[in-house]
């Protein structure tokens, strides 16, 4: 039964997430351009980019790279499916991390030094955000327990709540916002792969990827971004259907805030990223979880 639900969820996510993610990416570029005093590309520019990449000739450094990228994309979609079908949040996080690991493998499997620099930076990014994301899942469980009297990792549990989980875990939410910048690949934490014009060591993780493989990477990023926004929304949804509107407003504000950060801060060194993300995770996650556990 749950497998079927996840399957249907994955299908829904696989259809809707690329569309929403593409529009989100287009809006992102448009707003970034306005912030820099430019007109910016058309809204559908990310779509044109991907269509162009698909039209390009097929060139690959080896046969395995594309297989890894396909795995990364599929696991991202399954992670989305788990979330959309109301499944286990912890599972969703693990499957998404698995997708991220396949992406890293794809970069490592080419023997290009530039791709490998990108891959090690990507690994550092995963190391930086993962503790906070896990704390988020644990805090979600405890918040549901505090409100409902019975803990649950299930996303659908929010529909039975009287108040949103943010009331109990706002500190965790703030910590999550911090690592969200890393997950969305926004400056100052866009160490492995930047969406801005040419500021990379060649092009970080995607150096050796071209054509259809790169198109898949782009689509994967769109889907990831949509899933992260769903995570943000999760904090604000409760039994009342009107809460979905509130969640959408919060998502819009959060994304705008991320674009603003992206355009106003220069990239930091990886040491700063790692230590700050872990300190934030320990302080925000630790204090909030200790509070929920002992009070």
């Amino acid at each position: 039964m749950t497998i079927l639900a996840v399957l249907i969820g994955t299908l829904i996510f696989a259809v809707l997430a690329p569309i929403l993610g593409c529009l989100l990416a287009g809006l992102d570029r448009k707003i970034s351009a306005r912030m820099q005093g430019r007109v910016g590309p058309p809204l559908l520019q990310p779509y044109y980019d991907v269509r162009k990449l698909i039209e390009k000739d097929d060139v690959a450094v080896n046969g395995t790279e594309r297989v890894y990228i396909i795995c990364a994309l599929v696991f991202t979609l399954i992670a989305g499916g788990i979330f959309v079908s109301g499944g286990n949040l912890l599972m969703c996080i693990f499957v998404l991390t698995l997708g991220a690991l396949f992406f890293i493998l794809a970069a490592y499997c080419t023997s290009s030094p530039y791709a490998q620099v990108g891959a090690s930076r990507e690994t550092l990014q995963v190391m930086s955000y993962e503790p906070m994301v896990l704390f988020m899942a644990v805090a979600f469980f405890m918040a549901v327990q505090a409100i409902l009297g019975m803990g649950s990792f299930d996303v659908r549990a929010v529909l039975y709540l009287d108040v949103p989980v943010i009331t109990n875990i706002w500190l965790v939410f703030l910590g999550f916002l911090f690592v969200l910048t890393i997950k969305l690949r926004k400056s100052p934490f866009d160490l492995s792969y930047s969406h801005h014009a040419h500021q990379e060591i060649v092009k970080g993780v995607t150096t050796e990827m071209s054509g259809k493989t790169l198109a898949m990477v782009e689509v994967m990023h769109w889907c990831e971004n949509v899933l992260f926004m769903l995570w943000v929304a999760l904090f604000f949804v409760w039994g009342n259907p009107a809460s979905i509107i509130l969640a959408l407003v919060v998502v819009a504000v959060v994304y705008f805030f991320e674009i603003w950060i992206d355009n106003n801060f220069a990239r930091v060194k990886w040491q700063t990223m790692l230590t700050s993300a872990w300190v934030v995770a320990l302080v925000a996650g630790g204090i909030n979880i200790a509070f929920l556990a002992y009070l």
Partner: protein
Amino acid sequence: MSYATKSPWVIHYDGSSCNGCDIEVLAALCPGYDVERFGIINTGNPKHADIFLVTGSINEQNISVVQEIYNQMVEPKVVIACGICACSAGIFHDCYNVIGGVDKAIPVDVYAPGCAVRPEAIIDAVVQGLAILDEKSKALKAQKKGA
């Protein structure tokens, strides 16, 4: 119109030059001219690029570099020679190590003369290059269908 013309990503290489054209190319890519309006993005990776902007002339040292970048670019691709140095070696033409314009190393599709080449001329050349990119993209598609 193929999608290639809607999102041309450029890579830029500077050969033997006074750096004048080099600076003009980067000026064309800056917010003042906002080439991202046309989907143009400056990338540092030949594998992601559709348009190769070369400034400066070809010499004994850089000929292999230019050829390497060109070979790493994925079809369809277009080469634009920016500035008179890139077109025909310009004032450097009789230097002991200079071979000539970019067309001595790789096939050039559009020539944009000028010393230095104006950003407007570069944008015009890129737009001309897009028409060629469109043709090449269609040819590639037809070839794929045939194969």
